[in-house]
Protein backbone atom coordinates (compact mmCIF):
# COMPACT_ATOMS: atom_id res chain seq x y z
CA UNK A 1 0.00 0.00 0.00
CA UNK A 2 1.81 3.09 -1.13
CA UNK A 3 0.51 6.61 -1.00
CA UNK A 4 0.52 6.64 -4.76
CA UNK A 5 -1.71 3.59 -4.80
CA UNK A 6 -4.26 5.14 -2.47
CA UNK A 7 -4.45 8.38 -4.38
CA UNK A 8 -4.59 6.59 -7.70
CA UNK A 9 -7.45 4.42 -6.51
CA UNK A 10 -9.25 7.42 -5.03
CA UNK A 11 -9.06 9.60 -8.11
CA UNK A 12 -9.71 6.62 -10.37
CA UNK A 13 -12.81 5.76 -8.41
CA UNK A 14 -13.93 9.37 -8.57
CA UNK A 15 -13.37 9.46 -12.33
CA UNK A 16 -15.46 6.34 -12.92
CA UNK A 17 -18.15 7.42 -10.48
CA UNK A 18 -18.54 10.83 -12.10
CA UNK A 19 -18.56 9.04 -15.45
CA UNK A 20 -21.55 7.04 -14.28
CA UNK A 21 -23.25 10.16 -12.95
CA UNK A 22 -23.02 11.68 -16.45
CA UNK A 23 -25.63 9.22 -17.67
CA UNK A 24 -27.65 8.98 -14.51
CA UNK A 25 -28.61 12.56 -13.82
CA UNK A 26 -31.50 14.20 -15.62
CA UNK A 27 -30.11 17.71 -15.42
CA UNK A 28 -28.02 18.40 -18.47
CA UNK A 29 -25.80 20.96 -16.82
CA UNK A 30 -25.07 18.50 -14.06
CA UNK A 31 -24.34 15.88 -16.67
CA UNK A 32 -21.76 18.08 -18.41
CA UNK A 33 -20.15 19.15 -15.16
CA UNK A 34 -20.03 15.56 -13.94
CA UNK A 35 -18.06 14.76 -17.09
CA UNK A 36 -15.81 17.70 -16.28
CA UNK A 37 -15.14 16.41 -12.80
CA UNK A 38 -14.51 12.96 -14.19
CA UNK A 39 -11.89 14.45 -16.51
CA UNK A 40 -10.44 16.54 -13.70
CA UNK A 41 -10.07 13.42 -11.59
CA UNK A 42 -8.22 11.85 -14.51
CA UNK A 43 -5.96 14.91 -14.58
CA UNK A 44 -5.34 14.40 -10.88
CA UNK A 45 -4.43 10.78 -11.64
CA UNK A 46 -1.85 12.07 -14.11
CA UNK A 47 -0.41 14.26 -11.40
CA UNK A 48 -0.26 11.26 -9.08
CA UNK A 49 1.56 9.37 -11.82
CA UNK A 50 4.12 12.20 -11.88
CA UNK A 51 3.13 13.41 -15.34
CA UNK A 52 2.89 16.98 -14.14
CA UNK A 53 2.64 18.74 -17.47
CA UNK A 54 -0.03 16.39 -18.82
CA UNK A 55 -2.02 16.51 -15.61
CA UNK A 56 -2.14 20.29 -15.50
CA UNK A 57 -2.90 20.43 -19.20
CA UNK A 58 -5.75 17.96 -18.84
CA UNK A 59 -7.24 19.88 -15.91
CA UNK A 60 -6.99 23.14 -17.81
CA UNK A 61 -8.31 22.00 -21.17
CA UNK A 62 -11.25 20.07 -19.86
CA UNK A 63 -12.62 23.00 -17.82
CA UNK A 64 -13.29 25.00 -20.96
CA UNK A 65 -14.17 22.03 -23.12
CA UNK A 66 -16.82 20.68 -20.79
CA UNK A 67 -18.27 24.12 -20.10
CA UNK A 68 -18.80 24.44 -23.84
CA UNK A 69 -20.39 21.01 -23.69
CA UNK A 70 -22.72 22.29 -20.99
CA UNK A 71 -24.01 25.17 -23.06
CA UNK A 72 -24.58 22.91 -26.05
CA UNK A 73 -26.53 20.58 -23.84
CA UNK A 74 -28.71 23.42 -22.67
CA UNK A 75 -29.16 24.59 -26.23
CA UNK A 76 -30.10 21.31 -27.77
CA UNK A 77 -31.93 19.36 -25.13
CA UNK A 78 -35.61 19.72 -24.72
CA UNK A 79 -35.38 19.50 -20.98
CA UNK A 80 -32.05 20.83 -19.79
CA UNK A 81 -33.10 21.25 -16.19
CA UNK A 82 -34.27 17.65 -16.03
CA UNK A 83 -37.54 18.56 -14.36
CA UNK A 84 -39.56 16.38 -16.67
CA UNK A 85 -37.46 13.34 -15.80
CA UNK A 86 -37.66 12.41 -19.41
CA UNK A 87 -36.05 9.20 -20.55
CA UNK A 88 -33.49 10.01 -23.17
CA UNK A 89 -32.10 6.57 -23.83
CA UNK A 90 -32.75 3.83 -26.31
CA UNK A 91 -31.56 0.26 -26.86
CA UNK A 92 -30.85 0.15 -23.19
CA UNK A 93 -30.40 -3.59 -22.89
CA UNK A 94 -28.01 -3.73 -25.82
CA UNK A 95 -26.00 -0.83 -24.46
CA UNK A 96 -25.76 -2.37 -21.03
CA UNK A 97 -24.54 -5.65 -22.49
CA UNK A 98 -22.08 -3.89 -24.78
CA UNK A 99 -20.77 -1.74 -21.96
CA UNK A 100 -20.50 -4.72 -19.62
CA UNK A 101 -18.75 -6.91 -22.16
CA UNK A 102 -16.40 -4.08 -23.09
CA UNK A 103 -15.58 -3.57 -19.43
CA UNK A 104 -14.95 -7.27 -18.82
CA UNK A 105 -12.83 -7.66 -21.92
CA UNK A 106 -10.77 -4.64 -21.02
CA UNK A 107 -10.33 -5.89 -17.46
CA UNK A 108 -9.22 -9.31 -18.72
CA UNK A 109 -6.72 -7.65 -20.99
CA UNK A 110 -5.46 -5.63 -18.08
CA UNK A 111 -5.16 -8.41 -15.55
CA UNK A 112 -4.06 -11.40 -17.64
CA UNK A 113 -0.85 -10.43 -19.40
CA UNK A 114 2.52 -10.17 -17.78
CA UNK A 115 3.45 -6.52 -17.96
CA UNK A 116 7.12 -7.18 -17.36
CA UNK A 117 9.43 -5.09 -15.25
CA UNK A 118 7.98 -1.85 -14.00
CA UNK A 119 10.03 1.33 -13.96
CA UNK A 120 10.48 2.78 -10.51
CA UNK A 121 11.57 6.33 -11.15
CA UNK A 122 10.66 9.00 -13.65
CA UNK A 123 12.55 12.07 -14.82
CA UNK A 124 11.87 15.28 -12.92
CA UNK A 125 9.08 17.58 -14.00
CA UNK A 126 11.42 20.19 -15.50
CA UNK A 127 13.22 17.54 -17.47
CA UNK A 128 9.97 15.95 -18.61
CA UNK A 129 8.66 19.20 -19.98
CA UNK A 130 11.92 19.90 -21.77
CA UNK A 131 12.08 16.34 -23.16
CA UNK A 132 8.50 16.56 -24.35
CA UNK A 133 9.26 19.82 -26.10
CA UNK A 134 12.28 18.35 -27.86
CA UNK A 135 10.26 15.31 -28.84
CA UNK A 136 7.44 17.41 -30.25
CA UNK A 137 9.67 19.76 -32.17
CA UNK A 138 12.21 17.11 -33.10
CA UNK A 139 11.45 13.49 -33.83
CA UNK A 140 7.64 13.82 -33.76
CA UNK A 141 7.43 17.21 -35.37
CA UNK A 142 5.60 15.90 -38.39
CA UNK A 143 2.90 14.21 -36.30
CA UNK A 144 2.58 17.23 -34.07
CA UNK A 145 2.23 19.60 -36.99
CA UNK A 146 -0.32 17.32 -38.64
CA UNK A 147 -2.33 17.32 -35.44
CA UNK A 148 -2.21 21.10 -35.39
CA UNK A 149 -3.31 21.32 -38.99
CA UNK A 150 -6.07 18.81 -38.35
CA UNK A 151 -7.41 20.94 -35.52
CA UNK A 152 -7.31 24.02 -37.68
CA UNK A 153 -9.09 22.23 -40.52
CA UNK A 154 -11.67 20.82 -38.16
CA UNK A 155 -12.29 24.24 -36.64
CA UNK A 156 -12.79 25.83 -40.02
CA UNK A 157 -14.94 22.98 -41.28
CA UNK A 158 -17.07 22.94 -38.15
CA UNK A 159 -17.60 26.67 -38.37
CA UNK A 160 -18.51 26.40 -42.03
CA UNK A 161 -21.06 23.72 -41.28
CA UNK A 162 -22.50 25.67 -38.41
CA UNK A 163 -22.95 29.15 -39.89
CA UNK A 164 -26.18 30.22 -41.49
CA UNK A 165 -26.37 29.32 -45.15
CA UNK A 166 -26.26 32.36 -47.40
CA UNK A 167 -29.75 31.95 -48.72
CA UNK A 168 -31.22 32.13 -45.23
CA UNK A 169 -29.05 35.02 -44.23
CA UNK A 170 -30.50 37.12 -47.01
CA UNK A 171 -34.02 37.20 -45.71
Amino acid sequence: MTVQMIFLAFFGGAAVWFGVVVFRTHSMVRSALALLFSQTAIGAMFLVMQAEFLGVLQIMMMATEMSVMAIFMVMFMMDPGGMGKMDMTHQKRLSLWAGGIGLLAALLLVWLPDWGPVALSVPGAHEQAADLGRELLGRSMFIFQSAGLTILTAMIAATMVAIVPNAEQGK
Partner: protein
Amino acid sequence: MSIVVVLLSLAAGAYALAVIERWAVHGHLSLTGPAWAALALLGRESLLARKSDRLFFELGPVLLLVAGLMAVAVIPLAPGLIITDLATGALFLNAALAYVLVALIMAGWGPNGAYAMIAGWRFLGQFIAYAMLIVMPITAVAMRAESLSTVEIVASQEQLWNVLYQPMGFILFVVAAMGLAWLPPLDLPDATGELAGGVEAEYTGVRLAVLRLARMVIILALAGATVTFYLGGWLGPWLPGWAWSAIKILAVAAAMLSVGRYMPRIREARYLALSWKLGISLALANIFVVGVIALVVPI
Protein backbone atom coordinates in the same frame (compact mmCIF):
# COMPACT_ATOMS: atom_id res chain seq x y z
CA MET B 1 5.91 28.55 6.88
CA SER B 2 5.63 30.28 3.56
CA ILE B 3 2.04 29.04 3.31
CA VAL B 4 1.13 30.96 6.44
CA VAL B 5 2.94 34.08 5.28
CA VAL B 6 1.37 33.95 1.83
CA LEU B 7 -2.12 33.39 3.23
CA LEU B 8 -1.75 36.24 5.70
CA SER B 9 -0.57 38.61 3.01
CA LEU B 10 -3.42 37.36 0.85
CA ALA B 11 -5.90 38.31 3.55
CA ALA B 12 -4.33 41.74 3.94
CA GLY B 13 -4.30 42.22 0.18
CA ALA B 14 -7.93 41.16 -0.16
CA TYR B 15 -8.90 43.71 2.46
CA ALA B 16 -6.96 46.45 0.71
CA LEU B 17 -8.69 45.57 -2.55
CA ALA B 18 -12.08 45.65 -0.86
CA VAL B 19 -11.32 49.21 0.27
CA ILE B 20 -10.35 50.18 -3.26
CA GLU B 21 -13.35 48.49 -4.82
CA ARG B 22 -15.66 50.27 -2.46
CA TRP B 23 -14.19 53.53 -3.58
CA ALA B 24 -14.45 52.59 -7.24
CA VAL B 25 -18.10 51.58 -6.96
CA HIS B 26 -19.56 53.88 -4.34
CA GLY B 27 -17.19 56.78 -4.52
CA HIS B 28 -16.22 57.07 -0.88
CA LEU B 29 -13.00 55.94 0.64
CA SER B 30 -13.41 54.24 3.98
CA LEU B 31 -10.75 52.18 5.67
CA THR B 32 -13.13 50.42 8.02
CA GLY B 33 -16.06 50.07 5.62
CA PRO B 34 -15.31 46.59 4.26
CA ALA B 35 -14.77 45.22 7.76
CA TRP B 36 -18.22 46.39 8.83
CA ALA B 37 -19.72 45.18 5.61
CA ALA B 38 -18.19 41.73 6.01
CA LEU B 39 -19.35 41.49 9.60
CA ALA B 40 -22.82 42.63 8.60
CA LEU B 41 -23.02 40.01 5.86
CA LEU B 42 -22.44 37.33 8.48
CA GLY B 43 -25.51 38.50 10.34
CA ARG B 44 -27.82 38.66 7.38
CA GLU B 45 -30.02 35.92 6.23
CA SER B 46 -28.46 33.73 3.58
CA LEU B 47 -31.37 33.03 1.33
CA LEU B 48 -31.73 29.95 -0.74
CA ALA B 49 -33.63 30.70 -3.88
CA ARG B 50 -36.63 28.48 -4.32
CA LYS B 51 -36.21 25.69 -6.79
CA SER B 52 -32.51 26.24 -6.92
CA ASP B 53 -30.07 23.61 -8.01
CA ARG B 54 -28.78 23.64 -4.50
CA LEU B 55 -25.60 21.69 -5.12
CA PHE B 56 -24.40 24.18 -7.71
CA PHE B 57 -25.67 27.14 -5.75
CA GLU B 58 -23.65 26.19 -2.69
CA LEU B 59 -20.63 24.95 -4.58
CA GLY B 60 -20.20 27.91 -6.95
CA PRO B 61 -18.68 30.44 -4.49
CA VAL B 62 -16.59 27.77 -2.81
CA LEU B 63 -15.15 26.54 -6.09
CA LEU B 64 -14.42 30.14 -7.02
CA LEU B 65 -12.48 30.61 -3.80
CA VAL B 66 -10.60 27.35 -4.28
CA ALA B 67 -9.68 28.30 -7.84
CA GLY B 68 -8.37 31.64 -6.64
CA LEU B 69 -6.32 30.07 -3.86
CA MET B 70 -4.86 27.49 -6.27
CA ALA B 71 -3.80 30.28 -8.59
CA VAL B 72 -2.20 32.16 -5.72
CA ALA B 73 -0.22 29.05 -4.78
CA VAL B 74 2.19 29.41 -7.69
CA ILE B 75 2.81 33.15 -7.39
CA PRO B 76 6.19 33.95 -5.86
CA LEU B 77 6.24 36.93 -3.49
CA ALA B 78 9.96 36.79 -2.83
CA PRO B 79 12.72 34.26 -3.44
CA GLY B 80 11.57 31.21 -1.49
CA LEU B 81 8.26 32.79 -0.52
CA ILE B 82 5.91 30.71 -2.63
CA ILE B 83 3.48 27.99 -1.64
CA THR B 84 4.60 25.56 -4.29
CA ASP B 85 7.16 26.11 -7.01
CA LEU B 86 5.82 23.85 -9.73
CA ALA B 87 7.82 23.10 -12.85
CA THR B 88 4.66 23.94 -14.77
CA GLY B 89 3.64 26.90 -12.62
CA ALA B 90 2.54 29.19 -15.43
CA LEU B 91 0.34 26.48 -16.91
CA PHE B 92 -1.00 25.57 -13.49
CA LEU B 93 -2.08 29.16 -12.96
CA ASN B 94 -4.11 28.89 -16.13
CA ALA B 95 -5.61 25.59 -15.09
CA ALA B 96 -6.69 27.02 -11.76
CA LEU B 97 -8.20 30.10 -13.34
CA ALA B 98 -10.14 27.99 -15.83
CA TYR B 99 -12.26 26.85 -12.89
CA VAL B 100 -13.42 30.42 -12.40
CA LEU B 101 -15.53 29.71 -15.46
CA VAL B 102 -16.93 26.50 -14.02
CA ALA B 103 -17.71 28.24 -10.74
CA LEU B 104 -19.54 31.07 -12.46
CA ILE B 105 -21.58 28.70 -14.59
CA MET B 106 -22.58 26.88 -11.42
CA ALA B 107 -23.36 30.11 -9.62
CA GLY B 108 -25.33 31.31 -12.63
CA TRP B 109 -27.31 28.13 -13.16
CA GLY B 110 -27.79 27.29 -9.51
CA PRO B 111 -30.19 29.93 -8.22
CA ASN B 112 -32.78 29.49 -10.97
CA GLY B 113 -32.86 33.15 -11.89
CA ALA B 114 -32.91 34.55 -15.38
CA TYR B 115 -30.38 37.28 -14.70
CA ALA B 116 -27.91 34.94 -13.08
CA MET B 117 -28.28 32.35 -15.80
CA ILE B 118 -27.70 34.81 -18.62
CA ALA B 119 -24.73 36.17 -16.70
CA GLY B 120 -23.22 32.71 -16.32
CA TRP B 121 -23.49 31.90 -20.01
CA ARG B 122 -22.23 35.35 -20.90
CA PHE B 123 -19.12 34.65 -18.91
CA LEU B 124 -18.66 31.43 -20.84
CA GLY B 125 -18.48 33.33 -24.12
CA GLN B 126 -16.24 35.96 -22.59
CA PHE B 127 -13.96 33.37 -21.06
CA ILE B 128 -13.51 31.26 -24.15
CA ALA B 129 -12.60 34.35 -26.13
CA TYR B 130 -10.12 35.54 -23.55
CA ALA B 131 -8.58 32.29 -22.33
CA MET B 132 -6.49 32.36 -25.52
CA LEU B 133 -5.23 35.82 -24.66
CA ILE B 134 -4.12 34.57 -21.27
CA VAL B 135 -2.33 31.50 -22.60
CA MET B 136 -0.61 32.98 -25.62
CA PRO B 137 1.16 35.89 -23.90
CA ILE B 138 2.26 33.45 -21.18
CA THR B 139 3.71 31.28 -23.92
CA ALA B 140 5.86 34.18 -25.06
CA VAL B 141 6.93 34.85 -21.48
CA ALA B 142 7.86 31.21 -20.98
CA MET B 143 9.81 31.26 -24.25
CA ARG B 144 12.07 33.94 -22.89
CA ALA B 145 12.52 32.24 -19.52
CA GLU B 146 12.90 28.82 -21.13
CA SER B 147 10.78 27.48 -18.30
CA LEU B 148 7.20 27.36 -17.10
CA SER B 149 8.24 27.81 -13.50
CA THR B 150 7.07 31.15 -12.15
CA VAL B 151 10.23 31.58 -10.10
CA GLU B 152 12.40 31.18 -13.16
CA ILE B 153 10.16 33.51 -15.14
CA VAL B 154 10.81 36.23 -12.58
CA ALA B 155 14.52 35.44 -12.54
CA SER B 156 14.64 35.75 -16.33
CA GLN B 157 13.62 39.41 -16.04
CA GLU B 158 16.74 40.39 -14.11
CA GLN B 159 18.09 42.38 -17.04
CA LEU B 160 14.91 43.77 -18.51
CA TRP B 161 11.33 43.48 -17.36
CA ASN B 162 9.00 41.76 -19.76
CA VAL B 163 6.75 44.78 -19.89
CA LEU B 164 9.49 46.44 -21.95
CA TYR B 165 10.64 43.27 -23.67
CA GLN B 166 7.16 42.34 -24.92
CA PRO B 167 4.80 45.27 -24.33
CA MET B 168 2.19 43.83 -26.69
CA GLY B 169 1.91 40.70 -24.60
CA PHE B 170 1.59 42.83 -21.46
CA ILE B 171 -1.36 44.78 -22.82
CA LEU B 172 -3.12 41.68 -24.07
CA PHE B 173 -2.53 39.87 -20.80
CA VAL B 174 -3.84 42.72 -18.66
CA VAL B 175 -6.98 43.10 -20.76
CA ALA B 176 -7.60 39.37 -20.70
CA ALA B 177 -6.95 39.25 -16.96
CA MET B 178 -9.52 42.00 -16.40
CA GLY B 179 -11.99 40.05 -18.48
CA LEU B 180 -11.26 36.92 -16.51
CA ALA B 181 -11.88 38.69 -13.21
CA TRP B 182 -14.94 40.39 -14.75
CA LEU B 183 -13.73 43.82 -13.78
CA PRO B 184 -15.38 46.87 -15.27
CA PRO B 185 -15.48 47.85 -18.10
CA LEU B 186 -15.44 44.14 -18.91
CA ASP B 187 -17.85 43.17 -16.15
CA LEU B 188 -20.46 41.52 -18.33
CA PRO B 189 -21.40 38.77 -15.87
CA ASP B 190 -22.39 41.08 -13.07
CA ALA B 191 -23.27 44.20 -15.00
CA THR B 192 -25.39 46.16 -12.54
CA GLY B 193 -27.28 48.14 -15.15
CA GLU B 194 -27.95 45.16 -17.39
CA LEU B 195 -28.39 42.17 -15.15
CA ALA B 196 -28.74 43.77 -11.70
CA GLY B 197 -25.80 41.92 -10.24
CA GLY B 198 -25.89 38.89 -12.54
CA VAL B 199 -24.25 35.91 -10.89
CA GLU B 200 -24.11 37.73 -7.58
CA ALA B 201 -27.74 38.76 -7.71
CA GLU B 202 -29.21 35.82 -5.84
CA TYR B 203 -26.51 35.43 -3.22
CA THR B 204 -26.99 36.97 0.21
CA GLY B 205 -25.45 36.73 3.63
CA VAL B 206 -22.59 34.35 4.21
CA ARG B 207 -22.64 32.97 0.69
CA LEU B 208 -22.28 36.47 -0.70
CA ALA B 209 -19.38 37.09 1.67
CA VAL B 210 -17.62 34.00 0.31
CA LEU B 211 -18.32 35.07 -3.26
CA ARG B 212 -16.93 38.56 -2.68
CA LEU B 213 -13.85 37.21 -0.92
CA ALA B 214 -13.25 34.76 -3.75
CA ARG B 215 -13.46 37.56 -6.27
CA MET B 216 -10.87 39.59 -4.37
CA VAL B 217 -8.58 36.57 -4.25
CA ILE B 218 -8.93 36.09 -7.99
CA ILE B 219 -8.15 39.72 -8.67
CA LEU B 220 -5.10 39.45 -6.45
CA ALA B 221 -4.02 36.26 -8.21
CA LEU B 222 -4.31 37.96 -11.58
CA ALA B 223 -2.49 41.05 -10.40
CA GLY B 224 0.16 38.75 -8.98
CA ALA B 225 0.39 36.94 -12.29
CA THR B 226 0.78 40.22 -14.15
CA VAL B 227 3.57 41.26 -11.81
CA THR B 228 5.26 37.87 -12.02
CA PHE B 229 5.11 37.62 -15.78
CA TYR B 230 5.70 41.22 -16.82
CA LEU B 231 6.77 43.50 -13.99
CA GLY B 232 9.71 41.57 -12.66
CA GLY B 233 8.02 40.05 -9.60
CA TRP B 234 10.10 40.78 -6.51
CA LEU B 235 12.91 42.45 -8.48
CA GLY B 236 13.65 46.05 -7.66
CA PRO B 237 16.28 48.23 -6.04
CA TRP B 238 16.57 49.34 -2.37
CA LEU B 239 13.55 47.62 -0.90
CA PRO B 240 13.39 43.92 0.03
CA GLY B 241 11.77 41.56 -2.47
CA TRP B 242 8.49 41.04 -0.63
CA ALA B 243 7.95 44.78 -0.39
CA TRP B 244 8.39 45.19 -4.12
CA SER B 245 5.96 42.34 -4.74
CA ALA B 246 3.39 43.87 -2.42
CA ILE B 247 3.71 47.34 -3.92
CA LYS B 248 3.53 46.14 -7.49
CA ILE B 249 0.64 43.75 -6.92
CA LEU B 250 -1.43 46.32 -5.06
CA ALA B 251 -0.71 48.98 -7.67
CA VAL B 252 -1.70 46.71 -10.53
CA ALA B 253 -4.84 45.54 -8.71
CA ALA B 254 -5.82 49.11 -7.85
CA ALA B 255 -5.38 50.18 -11.46
CA MET B 256 -7.44 47.23 -12.69
CA LEU B 257 -10.21 47.98 -10.22
CA SER B 258 -10.48 51.70 -10.80
CA VAL B 259 -10.11 52.05 -14.56
CA GLY B 260 -13.69 50.92 -15.13
CA ARG B 261 -15.01 53.86 -13.18
CA TYR B 262 -14.05 56.20 -16.00
CA MET B 263 -15.60 54.49 -19.01
CA PRO B 264 -18.80 52.74 -20.00
CA ARG B 265 -19.03 48.99 -20.11
CA ILE B 266 -17.99 47.42 -23.36
CA ARG B 267 -20.56 45.91 -25.71
CA GLU B 268 -20.56 42.16 -25.59
CA ALA B 269 -20.55 41.51 -29.31
CA ARG B 270 -17.76 43.99 -29.92
CA TYR B 271 -15.76 42.61 -27.05
CA LEU B 272 -15.86 39.08 -28.38
CA ALA B 273 -15.10 40.23 -31.92
CA LEU B 274 -12.07 42.16 -30.68
CA SER B 275 -10.71 39.09 -28.99
CA TRP B 276 -11.15 36.67 -31.83
CA LYS B 277 -10.15 38.95 -34.66
CA LEU B 278 -7.61 41.35 -33.22
CA GLY B 279 -6.45 39.85 -29.96
CA ILE B 280 -5.46 36.44 -31.21
CA SER B 281 -3.65 37.85 -34.25
CA LEU B 282 -1.71 40.21 -32.02
CA ALA B 283 -0.91 37.44 -29.58
CA LEU B 284 0.46 35.27 -32.38
CA ALA B 285 2.49 38.19 -33.69
CA ASN B 286 3.79 38.72 -30.17
CA ILE B 287 4.96 35.13 -29.93
CA PHE B 288 6.68 35.45 -33.29
CA VAL B 289 8.41 38.71 -32.42
CA VAL B 290 9.55 37.41 -29.04
CA GLY B 291 10.88 34.28 -30.73
CA VAL B 292 12.87 36.32 -33.19
CA ILE B 293 14.25 38.62 -30.50
CA ALA B 294 15.14 35.68 -28.27
CA LEU B 295 17.12 34.15 -31.10
CA VAL B 296 18.82 37.35 -32.25
CA VAL B 297 19.46 39.36 -29.07
CA PRO B 298 19.91 37.13 -26.05
CA ILE B 299 19.00 39.26 -23.03
